[in-house]
């Protein structure tokens, strides 16, 4: 019974809850049992709040019993990336510097989940302050890919994708600064969506790079992502960059799933050299399916995308060096006193705290950002990167004059082995080469499973991109493609994943 519950989609659970076939307490308990059985191996959660989730489930069950009209996802549990503030629940951002910190308030996304009646199962593992593509930079140890426990689950939101892939939660929240929702989705065989920048509030999200960060859904189906998107999306007066417009009609688009007459652009610059053959093959097959379903497919050139990675790795560290200045050991988090100094100054305490509290990747990026913003180098690095950003936005604009959506492989490879790229930062950064342009321009993107690579049998992903505020197009195209692929596979791709062998599983 429990196994059936955890293998259900959020939409199926919502239906069973609405028709009283299941109670929220049963659904939450089934997921807590699954977490207890497999998370020691996957390590996707940093903190599980069983008591809080059951209490929220009991409350929603009572409201339903009293005849109250509830949100469609009421009672469906969810996991939240540990970068979002959760009142009364630890929030660490995968960093020692925030170990044990308990926020006194909720992020807007979290508040919206709670007001929809969604119990929060816990907080998911991540690369420290969302810097990384493998979840190996977490101060609390890496997450393992449920498809092969020796491999990475992607990053920085590897925990959020892995809980969904390992059936430890039906839904999760991630954040995507350069691909941290989409790339983990690709390598775990799940669905991940980065909404339009400003489409989901960033209030209460511990900022990495404020002009790039965007929270969004991690799920097993396109419809589930749409349902979750409609809960968390919409204007928030607490975030001055929040778009003041209605949430796009994403659920209707996911249910429509019709690509006949749509123009789909294949991005010439993404998918060539450096892309694994199996990734490329599954991508080509997906494009062929869209064509069979009546979409017109054309090749589109976005020449400035070749410079996106370089611009991103200047803009991100610059913003991060500023955003992470607040972690100074004065008002919250870790405070370390320097050794051998009597009566140390605040400056000396800050420097000792930041050395002890931050990991290597965070230090590397803060120092890189400090350099890029420093006098004498600003124009050559940060200023030039901002110009590249303009060129990339112009490329998108020109491309969307020709086509309705753009597509590419999501990540250049399937999941690599834990440890393989840890000593080679540039090689790690290349994982995000296809996802970064969307963050620079603020356009929405989705990754959904496109199959298994022949050479290693691991999941591959296809990325769909749409113009800003046209998020519904991702769901329409994604759901249509998902339906054709699932028919071809004879079931979901995740059903082909090896069973985790932990106790009780």
């Amino acid at each position, binding site marked *: 019974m429990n196994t059936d519950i955890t293998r259900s989609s959020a939409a199926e659970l919502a239906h069973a809850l609405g028709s009283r076939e299941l109670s929220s307490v049963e659904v939450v308990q089934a997921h807590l049992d699954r977490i207890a059985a497999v998370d020691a191996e996957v390590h996707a959660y940093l903190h599980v709040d069983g008591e809080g989730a059951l209490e929220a489930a009991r409350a929603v069950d009572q409201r339903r019993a009293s005849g109250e009209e509830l949100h469609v996802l009421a009672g469906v549990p969810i996991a939240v990336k540990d970068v979002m503030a959760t009142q009364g629940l630890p929030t660490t951002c995968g960093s020692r510097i925030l170990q044990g910190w308990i926020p006194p308030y909720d992020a807007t996304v979290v508040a919206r989940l709670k007001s929809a009646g969604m119990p929060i199962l816990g907080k998911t593992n991540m690369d420290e302050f969302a810097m990384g593509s493998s979840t190996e930079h977490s101060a609390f140890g890496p997450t393992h890919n449920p498809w092969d426990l020796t491999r990475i689950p992607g990053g920085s939101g590897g925990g959020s994708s892995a809980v969904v892939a390992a059936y430890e939660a039906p839904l999760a929240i991630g954040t995507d600064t350069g691909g941290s929702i989409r790339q983990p989705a690709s390598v775990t065989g799940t669905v991940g969506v980065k909404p339009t920048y400003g489409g989901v509030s960033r209030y209460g999200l511990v900022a990495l790079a404020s002009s790039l960060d965007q929270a969004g859904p991690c799920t097993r189906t396109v419809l589930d992502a749409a349902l979750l998107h409609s809960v968390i999306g919409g204007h928030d007066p607490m975030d001055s960059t929040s778009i003041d417009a209605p949430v796009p009609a994403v659920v209707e688009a996911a249910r429509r799933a019709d690509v006949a007459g749509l123009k789909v652009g294949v991005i010439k610059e993404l998918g060539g050299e450096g892309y694994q053959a199996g990734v490329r093959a599954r991508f080509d097959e997906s494009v062929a399916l869209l064509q069979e379903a009546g979409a017109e497919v054309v090749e589109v050139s976005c020449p400035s995308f070749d410079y996106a990675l*370089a611009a991103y790795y200047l803009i991100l560290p610059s913003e991060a060096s500023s955003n992470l*200045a607040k972690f100074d*050991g004065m008002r*919250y988090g870790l405070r370390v006193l320097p050794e051998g100094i009597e009566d140390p100054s605040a400056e000396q305490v800050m420097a000792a705290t930041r*050395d002890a509290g931050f990991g290597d990747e965070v230090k590397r990026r803060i120092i890189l950002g400090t350099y890029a913003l420093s006098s004498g180098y600003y124009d050559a690095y940060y200023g030039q990167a*901002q110009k590249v950003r303009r060129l990339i*936005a112009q490329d998108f604009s020109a491309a969307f004059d020709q086509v309705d959506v753009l597509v590419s492989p999501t990540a250049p490879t399937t999941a690599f082995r834990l440890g393989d790229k840890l000593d080679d930062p540039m090689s790690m950064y290349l994982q995000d080469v296809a996802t970064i342009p969307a963050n*620079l321009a603020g356009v929405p993107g989705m990754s959904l499973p496109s199959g298994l690579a022949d050479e290693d049998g691991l999941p591959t992903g296809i990325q769909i991109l749409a113009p800003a505020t046209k998020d519904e197009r991702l769901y329409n195209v994604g759901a249509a493609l998902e339906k054709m692929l699932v028919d071809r596979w004879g079931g979901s791709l995740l059903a082909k994943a090896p069973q985790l062998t932990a106790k009780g599983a």
Partner: protein
Amino acid sequence: MSALSRDDVAHLAGLARIDLSDAELDRMVGELGVILESVAKVQEVAADDIEPMSHPLPLTNVTRPDEVRPSLGVEAALSGAPEQEQQRFSVPRILDAD
């Protein structure tokens, strides 16, 4: 393109308020050199007539009516403080002893 020296990295770490050990400094010089070489590619493209773009949205100043509304109480605001004293954050000395 000027390569970063060990002294440069130590200076930057000082500006960023991070005490790096000698071993960390040595490793960081090499890694930052490789990264900088790679990101310097941005200098190949952008001409003078391209307007820099710092943000995906056109930003405007957002204000709200000047009305009193609830905020975090003192206890909640201090709940994560490493040290507190008399309802205030207690911090190491900011000024020199003399």
